């Protein structure tokens, strides 16, 4: 440290006041010289002799100075500045080439930066809290799922019985809450999140105004109706009015007092969702979604995300061991509920890259493809720089001849590519902003919901740093090989002739590798694009298994109006009865989820044991996705019942329990046997028996590219659910029915909100066509960019080869070669390169297909058709790129060619 105290001012002075330093050096040496001369004169020499002697004693003034300058250690800088100046000058000479290179790099860097912004938001961005690295997530684990949430009871036990944490917090999922500021106003849907009383304190979030929850506000169920607003909601709903504190608002019809507003810096802990407000967990009765279970008592009502802030010095492993022991205790105490259930602690990174989440996988695939575009761009630029270096051979030879070191020369050339890459990087950031803006513009397509969800991709510091790193990397990637090659220039030949190719086979090697890399990478990109398009197309052509036209959908959630289960049942009964009478309604149904209308939050599932099944020792039940529907569902949606029957009015709450399963389910559990008439028992082998009365056709339920999966249908009468969607099949335009529905709802409850009213076809288009279309567009764009760059690169290389061999071609033609001979000569090489590139590209394509299949489409095998189309078209296009310059070569006049140069 002390070293720098003395030396840093010196270095800075040398850099910033270089002239002054030189003057002082002059003065110092002059001072010495004068004394030396005086001494000489005093000893009897003539002034001239004395001067001569003095100079000799000092070994020459200029040499001295040069030696002293070397001690200043800022050579690297002054040299660099010189290099930059020189590089800019020489790049300006070839402005067209420079622009082309910069744009090429910009595309590559921009594509990568834009897609990286996605991965950044999905994986790397830390929680917006103080010391986010200390915050870990606790999960419940079973054989089937490694990331189960925890129940309220379990949360309390963990909070009170662990020592690894400064605090343990819990929150439920963000859910739709009916919000009204004034009494009597129709509630609007907002996103609310229930959190534990210590939530803000443990996360270290200081409210913008007011206060966070107190621990005691989370202790007595139903007592403390207080709410903390999210920053955005406060801004938009209350115009950032501080007087909001103490105000009363209605959430799901119940009065809550506003006690605080979260700060701008805390938009919430979710990646996509930014809750409008937070309520204490103790108010769960107002918000709880599950009518079958008691939130406060049932240990298996696992609805909470639990996080802890590790104490300083506590390792993840210690926390892990502690929670494992606690999970064993749970298993002993509650063998029925917790059999085979463990627990684990995960970091934020582990949670975000969990295997059952598809978003980040898309991100990783996109970044991989973005990097592939960058690779093509870099090889392209490297090729151009190689050509440039060749035409500068003489200049380089001169530099070497007058004593430039090889390292120094490489540095100069690398500086040039660094400047090119910086230009490309700057433009690339602009392209990246474009990509992000485009993502943002797709927001409404992606989220068809009333909840406050937003696409979190943005160009933040991490993304910008990554772009910078990419620019540097690409400078090295595309500059190093040309620089090393040209510094190896053979002096004698380099000086002698202008640009004649000497036995330089070795030198072409690098360029050929570039072409092969380019062709293969862009082939891989195209394959990926093609697979993506075909994957989605396939899923469309396969059909979804149900009708989509002439359907109107609108959602209801009577809990928003504080209906109890009996009122809810009555509401739906009357709604169905009355809407049936409306003109233009051909049929109607109520369903918990419309097909393809599930997201992770409201996908219901059922635990069951097929009757007579011997369960494995370590497993109590199987689980399957479930949907609750009424009698009209299968008919209205056009889903055929393959065996048995659908639901009937007679399947009432008093009648024996029944269910319909899909064909996949039937095949899964009773292969080669008829499932109709079989029973399943709910929860475990001693649970309520449910008879399977019908087998329905398997439909796409979650998304269009899913593989067939199990699905159980329950009748609404026997399995009441609060939040339902009304689907109406119309004779004419479905939207004409909207007024009829409004009229009917008004006769039932004037304030009941209607959620997401739209035609099912629109919904389907957004959800299943346009949403995935975003991914397809992105990948297709990258494929196209990669291909254009590859074509440009190939064209450049062949054209360059031709121009270099012009003289040779002239001689050949003078000796009697025909133009087709020449064409073959020039093309042959290009063909070979493309062929090798294609072979490598096919192998890479297989790799990418494996990756995409395993990550996205759950499909195996190889899509031969993709290669049959992509490979020959790639071949054709690249051949064309080689043909044009080759043809030009074949038409050269021999006389002209011989005079060339």
């Amino acid at each position: 440290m002390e070293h720098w105290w003395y030396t840093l001012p010196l270095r800075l002075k040398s850099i910033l006041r270089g002239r002054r330093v030189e003057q002082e050096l002059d003065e110092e040496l002059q001072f010495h010289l004068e004394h030396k001369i005086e001494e000489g004169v005093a000893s009897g020499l003539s002034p001239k002799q004395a001067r001569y002697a003095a100079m000799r004693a000092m070994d020459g003034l200029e040499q001295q100075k040069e030696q002293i300058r070397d001690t200043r250690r800022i050579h690297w800088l002054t040299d660099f500045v010189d290099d930059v100046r020189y590089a800019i000058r020489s790049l300006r000479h070839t402005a067209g080439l420079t622009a082309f290179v910069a744009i090429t790099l910009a595309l590559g860097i921009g594509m990568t930066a834009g897609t990286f912004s996605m991965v950044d938001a999905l994986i790397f961005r830390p929680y917006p809290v103080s010391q986010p690295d200390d915050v870990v997530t606790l999960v419940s684990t079973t054989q089937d799922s490694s990331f189960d949430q925890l129940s309220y009871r379990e949360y309390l036990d963990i909070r009170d019985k662990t020592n690894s944490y400064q605090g343990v917090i819990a929150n439920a999922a963000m859910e739709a809450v009916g919000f009204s500021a004034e009494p009597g106003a129709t509630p609007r849907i907002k996103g609310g999140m229930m959190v534990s009383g210590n939530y803000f304190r443990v996360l270290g979030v200081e409210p913008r105004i007011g206060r966070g929850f107190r621990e005691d506000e989370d202790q007595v169920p139903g007592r403390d109706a207080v709410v903390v607003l999210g920053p955005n909601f406060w801004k938009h709903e209350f115009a950032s009015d501080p007087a909001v504190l103490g105000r009363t608002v209605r959430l799901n019809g119940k009065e809550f007092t506003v006690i605080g507003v979260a700060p701008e810096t805390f938009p919430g802990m979710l990646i996509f969702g930014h809750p409008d407000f937070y309520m204490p967990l103790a108010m769960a009765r107002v918000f709880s979604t599950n009518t079958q279970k008691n939130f406060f008592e049932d240990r298996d009502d696992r609805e909470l995300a639990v996080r802890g802030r590790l104490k300083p010095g506590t390792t993840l492993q210690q926390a892990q061991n502690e929670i494992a022991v606690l999970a064993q205790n749970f298993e002993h105490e509650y063998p029925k509920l917790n059999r085979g259930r463990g627990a684990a602690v995960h970091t934020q990174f582990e949670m975000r890259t969990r295997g059952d989440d598809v978003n980040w996988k898309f991100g990783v695939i996109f970044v991989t493809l973005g990097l592939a575009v960058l690779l093509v761009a870099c090889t392209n630029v490297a090729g151009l720089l190689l050509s440039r270096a060749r035409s500068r051979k003489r200049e380089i030879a001169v530099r070497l001849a007058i004593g430039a070191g090889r390292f120094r020369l490489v540095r100069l050339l690398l500086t040039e590519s660094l400047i090119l890459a910086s230009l490309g990087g700057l433009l690339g950031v602009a392209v990246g902003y474009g990509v992000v803006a485009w993502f943002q513009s797709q927001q409404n397509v992606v989220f068809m919901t009333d909840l406050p969800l937003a696409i979190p991709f943005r160009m933040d510091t991490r993304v910008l740093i990554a772009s910078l790193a990419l620019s540097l990397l690409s400078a090295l990637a595309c500059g190093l090989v040309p620089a090393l090659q040209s510094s190896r220039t053979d002096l004698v030949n380099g000086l002698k002739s202008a640009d004649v190719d000497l036995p330089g086979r070795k030198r072409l090697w690098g360029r050929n590798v570039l072409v092969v890399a380019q062709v293969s990478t862009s082939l891989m990109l195209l394959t990926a694009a093609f697979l993506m398009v075909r994957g989605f197309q396939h899923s469309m052509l396969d059909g979804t298994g149900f009708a989509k036209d002439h359907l109107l959908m609108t959602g209801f959630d009577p809990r928003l109006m504080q209906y109890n289960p009996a009122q809810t049942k009555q509401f739906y009964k009357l709604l169905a009865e009355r809407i049936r009478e409306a003109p233009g309604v051909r049929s109607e149904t109520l369903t918990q989820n419309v097909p393809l209308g599930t997201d992770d939050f409201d996908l219901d599932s059922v635990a069951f044991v097929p009757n007579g099944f011997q369960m494995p020792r370590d497993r109590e039940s199987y689980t399957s996705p479930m949907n609750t529907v009424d009698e009209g569902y299968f008919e209205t949606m056009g889903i055929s019942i393959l065996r048995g029957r659908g639901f009937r009015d007679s399947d009432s709450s008093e009648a024996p329990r029944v269910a319909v399963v899909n064909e996949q389910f039937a095949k899964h559990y009773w292969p080669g046997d008829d499932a109709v008439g079989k029973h399943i028992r709910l929860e475990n082998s001693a649970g309520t028996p449910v008879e399977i009365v019908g087998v329905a056709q398997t439909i796409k339920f979650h998304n269009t590219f899913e593989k067939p999966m199990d699905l159980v249908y329950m009748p609404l009468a026997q399995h009441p659910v609060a939040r339902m969607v009304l689907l109406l099949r119309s004779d004419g335009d479905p939207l004409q029915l909207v007024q009829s529905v409004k009229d009917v709802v008004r006769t039932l409850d004037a304030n009941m909100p209607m959620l997401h009213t739209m035609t099912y076809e629109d919904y389907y288009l957004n959800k299943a066509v346009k949403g995935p279309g975003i991914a397809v567009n992105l990948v297709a764009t990258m494929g196209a960019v990669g291909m254009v760059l590859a074509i440009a690169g190939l064209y450049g290389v062949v054209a360059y080869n031709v121009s270099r061999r012009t003289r040779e071609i002239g001689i050949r033609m003078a000796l009697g070669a025909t133009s087709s001979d020449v064409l073959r000569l020039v093309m042959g090489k290009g063909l070979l390169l493309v062929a090798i590139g294609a072979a490598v590209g096919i192998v890479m394509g297989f790799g990418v297909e494996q990756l995409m299949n395993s990550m996205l489409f759950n499909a195996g095998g190889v899509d031969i058709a993709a290669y049959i189309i992509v490979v020959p078209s790639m071949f054709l296009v690249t051949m064309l790129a080689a043909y044009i310059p080759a043809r030009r070569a074949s038409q050269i006049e021999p006389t002209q060619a011989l005079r060339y140069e």
Partner: protein
Amino acid sequence: MSKPNDLVQGTLDLLLLKILGLEPLHGWAISLRLRSISGDVLQVSEGSLYPALHKLEQEGWITAEWKQTENNRRAKFYSITRLGKRQLEAEAANWRRLSAAISQVIQISEA
């Protein structure tokens, strides 16, 4: 590159630090002092004096200041820093060890 005449490599640094440890001096005075205290035994080429001084300065062992000389001329005066004193001790100790070892070797060969 000129070499220090008759001077073991690296000892010039030691000598300069030692001299400047006594009092701040300018380059010419240093060269006079070198000659006088070593009694003309150690011939330091003036050509290597200034590069050595600048090197020591860049290392942070000595620091320079422009001041008036007794005959009212501006000159660059060098003085030793704390870092330089430490370096001097280290090099002096090193030198003593080395010279002791060498004289021992010489005695052995005489015996």
